[in-house]
C-alpha cells in the first residue's frame, strides 16, 4: 500500500545519512567530549543525557520516515505514544527504588 504521491527515496537517503552521522556523533560524544573531572557523577549524567537525546532523534527519524508514521493514518502514532508514556511512568516509579533506607 503506497502512502503518498511524492517519491520517498530522497528522504530515505537523507534519513540514512543522518543516522550514520548521528551514530558517529554519539560515539564521539561519548569518547571525546569531556566534562571537568571534578564534576564526577553529574558529568556522567550529562553523557547519558546526550546519548539518550541522540538516540531519541534517531529513533524519531526511523519511525517517522522509514516506518511511515509521518504519512500514515494518524491513529498509528498512538501505538508509539502510549508505550512511551507508560515507560516514562514506569521508569519514574523505578527511580525511587533504592532511595529508601540503606541508612548509615
Amino acid at each position: 500500500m503506497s502512502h503518498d504521491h511524492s517519491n520517498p527515496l530522497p528522504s530515505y537517503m537523507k534519513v540514512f545519512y543522518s543516522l550514520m552521522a548521528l551514530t558517529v556523533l554519539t560515539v564521539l560524544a561519548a569518547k571525546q567530549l569531556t566534562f571537568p573531572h571534578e564534576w564526577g557523577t553529574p558529568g556522567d549524567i550529562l553523557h547519558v543525557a546526550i546519548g539518550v537525546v541522540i538516540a531519541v532523534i534517531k529513533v524519531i527519524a526511523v519511525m517517522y520516515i522509514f516506518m511511515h508514521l509521518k504519512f500514515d493514518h494518524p491513529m498509528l502514532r498512538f501505538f508509539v505514544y502510549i508505550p512511551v508514556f507508560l515507560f516514562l511512568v514506569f521508569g519514574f516509579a523505578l527511580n525511587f527504588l533504592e532511595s529508601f533506607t540503606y541508612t548509615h
Partner: protein
Amino acid sequence: MSLALNLSHEPITKIPHGKLAMWAFLASELMFFSGFFGGFIVLRNTNYDVFGAGSAHLNWTLALINTFILIGSSLTMALAIHNLEHKKDGAFRLFMGLTILGGFGFLIVKYIEYSSKFADGLFPGQENHTVFYSFYFLMTGFHALHVIAGMIPMAYIFFKGFTKAGYPYPSKVETLGLYWHFVDLMWIFIFPALYLMIPYHVAGAH
C-alpha cells in the same frame, strides 16, 4: 449463497489487517524492552561501578560496525519495499538480498563478540560474570533473537521473489519492514546504553 455476502469489506481504517496488527505488536514489543530498560535503569543506579567496568570492557568498535550494518539494512529494506510497490522486481530482489545479508553480517559480528566474551569468562555461571553482563547477554540476546526471527520470513519472501509470479504481496513486505525497522530502532537504544555510557572514573581506570 454466502458468496453474495459482503461481510469482509475493505478495512475501515484503510490500514491492512496485518499492518495494523503489526503496529499493535510493535507497541507490545516496545513495552517488552521497556521492562528490560526499567530494570537496567534501576540496577545501573545501584551498581554504578560494576556497570561502568562492564561497559568499558565491551568492544564498542564491533558494536559500531553492527550499528552501521543495521542502519544499512534498514535502508535497503525501505528500498526493497519501495521497489516492490513500483513493480521493479529486480531491484526488489537485490535490496531484499542485501537486507538479509545485513542480518547475517550482524549475526556474524555478534558471534565474534560473544565468543570473546565467553573466552573472558563473562557468561553467566563463569567466574568473571557480573550483573552488567547479565544485562548484556539478556538485551543483546533477545535482540539477536529478533534479528533471526525477522530473517526467516525475509528469506521466504526473497526466494518467492525469484518465481515467475514474483512476490505478490507488497503490503506483507511492508509489514515485515516495520518489524525490521523496529529491530534497528531497539539497537539504537541498546548501543549507547550498553557500550557507551561509561562513568569517568571507571573509564580512566582502564
